């Protein structure tokens, strides 16, 4: 078998390029916690209204006793509910997305807030938005003939101007 010395050199360069890329990705994932959304958590999409977490009154932005912010959203043809939310910039946010019907995807352009929303599963993402502004929330997986119309809004406001939504003892937002 004949292998040219040039081929051997090129093979080594190629291996080094690929190792470099894989290395950077792995360091980011394992040491900086930069991961794809992968929580493998199931939920009955047909009974979201009966679930405690995703009942209508519990949707949207909530701050818990520790000050951690969780955003609970339901995707359904053709919008994301609640249709408008406000979150603080430069703050860690935990998004939890579920579908009430078919497969959806959600992406907030110019950010890494992106996930598939698979019926039967909760998709969870932790991220923060560095730049304040009014962003659209877009469905990016074909979900039916009205797919174009599936969007909602998110306002990212300056951290010190953001007011946490108040939730009464009955669970209803005021």
């Amino acid at each position, binding site marked *: *078998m*004949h*292998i*040219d010395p*040039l*081929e051997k050199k*090129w*093979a080594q360069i*190629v*291996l080094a390029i*690929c190792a470099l*890329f*894989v290395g950077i*990705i792995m360091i*980011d*994932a394992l040491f900086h916690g*930069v*991961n*794809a*959304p*992968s929580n*493998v*958590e*199931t*939920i009955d*999409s*047909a009974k979201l209204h009966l679930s405690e977490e995703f009942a209508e009154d519990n949707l949207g932005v909530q701050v818990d006793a520790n000050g951690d912010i969780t955003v609970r959203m339901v995707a359904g043809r053709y919008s994301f509910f609640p249709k408008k939310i406000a979150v603080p910039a430069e703050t860690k946010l935990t998004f939890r997305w579920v579908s009430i*019907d*078919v*497969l959806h*995807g959600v*992406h907030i*352009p*110019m950010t*890494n*807030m*992106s*996930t*598939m*929303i*698979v*019926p*039967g*599963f909760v998709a*969870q993402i932790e991220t923060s938005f560095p730049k304040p502004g*009014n962003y*659209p929330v*877009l*469905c*990016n*997986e*074909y*979900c*039916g*003939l*009205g*797919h*174009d*119309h599936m*969007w909602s809004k998110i306002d990212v406001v300056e951290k010190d101007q953001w007011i946490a939504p108040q939730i009464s003892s009955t669970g209803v937002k005021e």
Partner: protein
Amino acid sequence: MNDNTAKNLALSHMWVAFIAFILACFMGEYQVLERSGLFEILSSPTVYFASVSTHGVLMAFVLTTFFIMGFGYYTASTSLKVPVWNKQLAWGGFSLALLGTVLAAIPLLTGFASVMYTFYPPIQAAFVFYLGATLLIVGSWVWCGIMIVMFLQWKQENPGKTIPLAMFATTMNALLWLWTSAGVALESLFLIVPWSLGWTDTIDVGMARTLFAWTLHPIVYFWLLPAYTAFYVFVPKQAGSFLFSDELARAAFIVLVVFSLPIGFHHLYMDPEQAKGWKMLHGVGTFVVAIPTFMTGFTVIASLEIAGRLRGGKGLFGWIGSLPWTNTMVLSVILSLLMLIFGGWGGLVNASYAMNAMIHNTAWVPGHFHLIFAGTTVIMYFAIAYYLWPILTKKPLYSNNLALVQLWTWFIGMSIMTTPWHVLGLLGQPRRISSVVYNNLMTLSWKPYELLMILGGLVLLGSACLFIYLLVKTQFNATTEVFEGQVEYAEPLHAVKDLPEYLNDIKLWNKVIAVFMAISFGIPILQFFFLDTYDSSAWGY
């Protein structure tokens, strides 16, 4: 040797492929026009999504599968110098695949299967659509079987001899397709067909997506391998040179086939039903499969450099100018490699695990696969057609100059169309939308790119029509001139000797694939039997 059987098989399969192609090209141009919103009269999500679904099925399943089968029969017969084994069976496979295509086309064109060529449940299409798609796949399995039988028979009759590279590549592709299509076949057989017939009420969406991801990555290598085969076995000869390395070509095909299979989860990076460890494992494999493409680039460019220098090219880059640019095969490979370089780097972005979040399901994705499939791969399908048509029809190519114009315009059109498509993705535009109705200022920045895509699509449509025109004019030319040429396979620079058996057989690699697939898909599939999953009922669209 019954040479006519292989020729007729090749011509029939390729005509089905190219008829599907030209129909889908018209749909593609309609789609960019519709989506731009320039013409109010065109605006219709119903027609648009029926069209996108049909365009995807025709291009991704019909063009590819039929082209690959036709090319495979002819390559096998001419490289091994034997007739096609069991020609009745071969025609049976052709008929089955054609029947499947027609069956799938009926609901697609009438709007009863607007579920995209990825048909993600729980949106449900008419049963006939799934039946047609399944028959197309079963028909292609007949081809796989014939390729493998011819490979093994030749090995048995020629012990100790090296199987021709063209046949080795073709058989590896047949092996690849059997393994690749198993994922979607399992999904179809156990989940989708019973559900679409109403035998089951619900479907496990997570498992369906996992099985589809099994197929979704290696399928693109199934499409790409004929292009790589032409790179290695036709291009060097057409350029007036030798193949730089026969052995490394075999190694490249092996690594491509073995590593393209266990890496499908890079399509599921953004999915909640698989854990991050599995995604990382598949992510590493995705970078491994980039290695043979880098090696292929090296070998092909080295072969071309020898050609350029043999023709008197001097200096570091002087050999490029002295290549035979007017040879359709040589021009195609140059344009194909250019598109592969840009498309390949785009692909590395997609492959990069968490970075994929920025472009996942945006317009970047169809931009990427049009560049690398419709560009890199399909331009080589054109080159193969231009090369084979005179041999198959015994008539000279109608016009070499027009063929060169066609190849250049395809490249230019693809550049004009896919560059803005990538940019649209970076600007946040989702894929698969029929209009832009988001009430947001950001979307204003999308407009100029959408208009540019219409222009790119027009150039591509013109180029596609010219391609079909040239094939028709060549085959049905009333000329009395007879083309006597035969297929010529490239000779390696160094004669192949002492080839280790692992570079000359597929059995070992079949076992390696089985182990890799068990490791990378075993637990991710089995988990759905242990998880408390909630299946989904069927939804319309």
